């Protein structure tokens, strides 16, 4: 056994630790990747797994981001968020099945157009649904967590059942668009093309969301509202409208995530939203409820860990995420990036 790491309390070391502290969550993702590199014997497998992990993380992030923002802004916890994932997947996949002449053609442009149509369709559908969900299900139970949990869970059940009524109880299989099938080889590692697309879309969504939150007035209102909604209103902004907008956008993003997830799994079921809620919850808890950045980092960690562990010890993969959540909560009980709340 090697000697314990040096813990001399020198000035330089304290400042280094202090300087690194705020970046700890980001460093954790990198650390996880390095751990994976050490644990996984072949570099090419590691690369393959890392890309799948990132792809999975990006998709979870897209699905979870709306949930965490809605919570941050209005203290509303939506257990029915998964319903939007399911509906998005069903609408998107139905559109893709209808556009078979485009998805079946070996043209990347046509394939991507079809995907774009499916994604937009799914997002419009889930966005509208989110708007209705907010009005009918969530609005009457503002400020009442217990009822929120119960009622939104009820909403999830109803939506799941309606999906079965409309689309039938059987799962639907879907093949990916022609040009996105198969893998590319990079540095000896086989990387599925579709995963690269998922990573790309995820990165665009994250950067777009960051831009909106940091550089637009709406973003300022949302960030300020997360901290102190009452004061935002006292400045003259109608927080309720902003909240409905965020809810709608978050639902649309969940729908987008549903399409991506469905194509990733190549099969969709009415219960996929409910199942995705498990990962979504783990991710938002890890990240810190209300924090978009935390949600992003948490999602990447969950995606990476799940893929590494599934390669090393398949049976433990599922519990690994729970283990990660427990470890993070022991370190920071409010999640990695706790959200400051006035009051």
């Amino acid at each position, binding site marked *: 056994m090697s000697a314990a790491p040096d813990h001399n309390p020198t000035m330089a070391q304290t400042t280094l630790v202090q300087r690194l502290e705020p970046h700890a969550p980001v460093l954790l993702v990198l650390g996880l990747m390095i751990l994976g590199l050490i644990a996984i014997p072949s570099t090419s497998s590691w690369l393959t797994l890392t890309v799948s992990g990132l792809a999975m993380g990006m998709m979870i992030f897209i699905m979870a981001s709306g949930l965490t923002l809605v919570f941050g802004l209005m203290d509303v916890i939506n257990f029915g968020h998964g319903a939007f994932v399911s509906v998005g997947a069903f609408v998107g996949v139905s559109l893709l099945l209808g556009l078979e002449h485009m998805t079946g053609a070996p043209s990347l442009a046509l394939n991507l157009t079809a995907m774009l149509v499916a994604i937009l369709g799914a997002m419009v559908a889930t966005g509208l649904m989110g708007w209705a969900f907010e009005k009918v299900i969530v609005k009457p139970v503002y400020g009442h967590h217990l009822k929120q949990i119960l009622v939104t869970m009820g909403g999830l059940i109803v939506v799941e059942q309606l999906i079965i009524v409309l689309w039938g109880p059987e799962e639907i299989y879907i093949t990916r668009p022609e040009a996105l099938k198969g893998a590319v080889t990079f540095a000896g590692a086989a990387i599925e093309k579709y995963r690269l697309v998922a990573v790309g879309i995820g990165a665009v969504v994250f950067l777009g969301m960051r831009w909106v939150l940091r550089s637009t007035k709406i973003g300022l209102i949302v960030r*300020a509202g997360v*901290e*102190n909604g*009452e004061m935002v*209103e006292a*400045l003259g902004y109608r927080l309720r409208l902003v909240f409905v907008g965020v809810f709608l956008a978050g639902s649309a993003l969940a729908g987008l995530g549903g399409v991506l997830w469905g194509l990733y799994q190549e099969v969709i079921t009415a219960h996929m939203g409910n199942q995705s809620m498990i990962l979504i919850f783990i991710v938002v808890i890890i990240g810190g409820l209300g924090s978009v950045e935390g949600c992003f980092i948490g999602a990447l960690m969950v995606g990476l860990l799940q893929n590494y562990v599934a390669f090393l010890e398949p049976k433990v993969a599922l519990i690994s995420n729970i283990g990660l959540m427990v470890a993070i909560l022991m370190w920071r009980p409010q999640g990695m990036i706790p959200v400051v709340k006035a009051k």
Partner: protein
Amino acid sequence: MSDNILTLKGVKTNIAQYHILQGVDLDVPRGAVTMLLGRNGVGKTTTLRTIIGHWRAHEGQILLDGEDITKVPTPAIARMGVGFVPEDMGIFSDLSVEENMTLAAVSGPINDSRLQWLFSVFPALETFWKKDAGTLSGGQKQMLTIARAMIEDRKLYLIDEPTKGLAPAIISTMAKALRELKSQGASILLVEQNFAVAKALGDTANVMDDGRMVWSGEMNTLATDGDLQERLMGLTMDGHH
């Protein structure tokens, strides 16, 4: 039009089962500083919060420029030109000073000459312009919250204990800023525990006790009548001399 910018008539506010305001009558004259005084817990903060609409009056009427705002939502009241500086300051600590100010400029981009004027009143703002508001000191935060209310012209400023917990040197900066605001002809309703500041700034004074207005008149009258002070506000006020 009356020369009062704000009038409260028999306002009653309940919070949960508690009757905090039990019929408040108040006139805030235009272009003057109106002091709202009284011991802790008599309903001064609740009065301000009821005016801005954070809490709803269950009875009575609130008139802003003659218009009934008793049931108007908070954002709409703010947009009618009411600037609110709450007791807890309500700054957004995750946002930079710049972002705090940008957000406060409700009707559009920040007016540059007004900003320069604010910088001259509160030089610290310029120094920490890009910093997160959460990293500021208590006094700087208080300056930010007042500057934030002043970034656009308001009809009426509701300011809750701006000198609370501040060091004497900073209190004088604060008092200077409020005087500056007053010299612009602003109407201000000010809750203040520091009697020296109140004496220096106030035109009229209103003293509350137990959810009611117990005395209204000229600030001078109150400032020069020690017995009256003693009777209305007790020893709490004296402690601040």
